[in-house]
């Protein structure tokens, strides 16, 4: 088995996009709802719950469709949803910031905008593990490596967003760039490949 393959790449890039999007999301809601503990807790809760749901769902889907193409399609879907965040944010924030308070407002906006892409991105990790595990005996190694890659991607995404992209290009473009990166990795395989991994 090749040690580094497509699944590893997708997991790494998905890690980048997930953490990057989380940082940018906090920046997106602050002007409307502030940065009080309530809003912060909502952000963490929505992201983690969506991730947990994604992991669970991704595991189930992976056993049913253990193909490279299915993984790529899911990743592409995640990219599209990330790109939609800043586009949908303006009308949604405009409609909610006067009508709703900090707690319900930020929860609604985050649940609508951020939860769907994070859920899809979360599903990629167990999916990739399913694709790469060939035998129970080697499962620890594969799982550990993919976990590590996803976390390393998170590290990169975190820093890229907070230290470079948000100050340089602004919040909206940060989302679009992360989405473009993920799409660039997933689109070619989603379109062409129908071979199993």
């Amino acid at each position, binding site marked *: 088995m090749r040690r580094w393959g497509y699944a590893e790449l997708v997991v790494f890039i998905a890690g980048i996009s997930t953490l990057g999007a989380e940082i940018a999301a906090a920046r997106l809601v602050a002007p409307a709802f502030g*940065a009080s503990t309530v809003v912060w807790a909502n952000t963490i809760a929505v992201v*983690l719950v969506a*991730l947990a749901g994604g992991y669970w769902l991704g595991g189930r889907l*992976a056993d049913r469709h253990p193909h490279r193409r299915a993984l790529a399609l899911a990743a592409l879907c995640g990219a599209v949803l990330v790109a939609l965040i800043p586009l949908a944010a303006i009308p949604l924030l405009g409609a909610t910031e*006067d009508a709703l308070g900090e707690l319900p407002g930020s929860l609604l906006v985050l649940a609508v905008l951020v939860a769907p892409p994070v859920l899809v991105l979360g599903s990629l990790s167990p999916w990739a593990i399913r694709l790469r595990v060939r035998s129970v005996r080697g499962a620890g190694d594969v799982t*550990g490596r993919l976990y590590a890659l996803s976390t390393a991607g998170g590290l990169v995404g975190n*820093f890229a967003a907070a230290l470079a992209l948000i100050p340089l290009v602004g919040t909206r473009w940060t989302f679009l760039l992360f989405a473009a990166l993920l799409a660039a990795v997933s689109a070619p395989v989603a379109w062409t490949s129908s071979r199993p991994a």
Partner: protein
Amino acid sequence: MFAVGLSTLGAEIAAQRLMAPFFGSSTVIWANTIAVVLLALSIGYWLGGRLADRRPERSALAALVLLGSGLLAIVPFIAHPFLSLSVSAFDELSVGAFLASLFGTLVLVAVPLLLLGAVSPWATRLKLADVTQAGVTAGRLYAISTVGSLVGVFFVALWAIEAIGTQRTFLVLAAVPALVAAAQLGPRWLVVPGALVVALALPVGTTKPGNVLYETETAYQYARVVQDPDGTRKLELNEGQAIHSLWRPGTVLTGGYWDGFLVLPFATGSGRPPARIAALGTAGGTVPRAYAHYFPSTRVDAVDIDGELFKIGRRWFGLEARPQLREFAQDARPFLRSTDERYDAIFVDAYRQPYIPFYLTTREFFSLARSRLAPGGSVIINVGHPRDSQTLEKALSATLGTVFKHVARDPVQTLNTLVIASDAPLSAAGLDEAPAALRSLAGESAGRLEPALRGGTVFTDDRAPVEWLIDASIVSYAAGEEK
């Protein structure tokens, strides 16, 4: 898995709070913490996977968890020498020692996290019976660990730090997985979680040395009240490089930038004190106290995100409850949006050191502030900046200039400028109308008043690199000190 997930993310938050009183919570410190935590977890995952294939046994996993939690529990105890070193290094402005103590602390946190990170792939390996089930198994364990993290974050951030302090938070975080692991290994290992529970009874020392009247962990920061030999009280938050409120015996004047808020509203030429003001970022209430003395009929809406600071203000900083004063424990921007009041002056002095929250520096925010002003009213912002660094002040002046007709500056202290903006013309002559008791203060301010700095970038909600500008000036300042 659940218990470990709870510990790891909980420990990350607790580690930030452990360090905040000493290093502050700037992006630089935050980035280092995140980097070390994620790197440690990442290496732990990779290593755990390799080890798991060699020793796929429950007892090996349990031993690992026990060791990891034991190491986590001792973090707050051995961290103190490192942290004390940082205080002296900070005072002597020794960048090298400061960095050394920072990384010492971080390594301390990293080792137990590395061990706990190894658990995830190990557990997957143990649970996996059949390759065709790999997706479901991995997905379920991932999900369980994430839910554990969620519980850990909420437990630490919303309850534990405030209620039981950082030291005991670490102990509880360590005891939970230790208990689970000991249950697996057999009764005699219950000694370890038992010892951790006993350690909860250990006394917690004062966090930092100094003549501390009072210290507390709030939901937002570490706050302490320090008294100087002459009786002056200062409110310090986190690393305490900036003073957020000042109380001096026998006077409501501070000799600091706070006094400027008393006289600058006269620069609009209104000829009368403001009838209604909003003080965004009140902290211990230095400004409302001064208003109560000089302009008792002015209605003051005091706003601060951290409600705990009002209590500190009442107890230590002479903030008195009176009908003209209303307190709002709320974020400044949502407050301003929801209020129906129209103010003669809005003061912006909200800091989360060393930054002004970015969403209080943008064109959108200043438009909102303008819409909450009575005709002829003004917005006054305290801009703290490192020596000789004017980038942030220029950007704020440029941004105010897109919303208001007139912007002026009063460089009140070496490290603070008050920037005032209004649709009414601003002039030093207006300051002559200040009451007699404040005449000398107004005269000094009039002497300093000058047109706003030019040439800054306009900040928007989409792009307002406040942290970036401040980090850059801090780094160049620190680098300059080294030479």
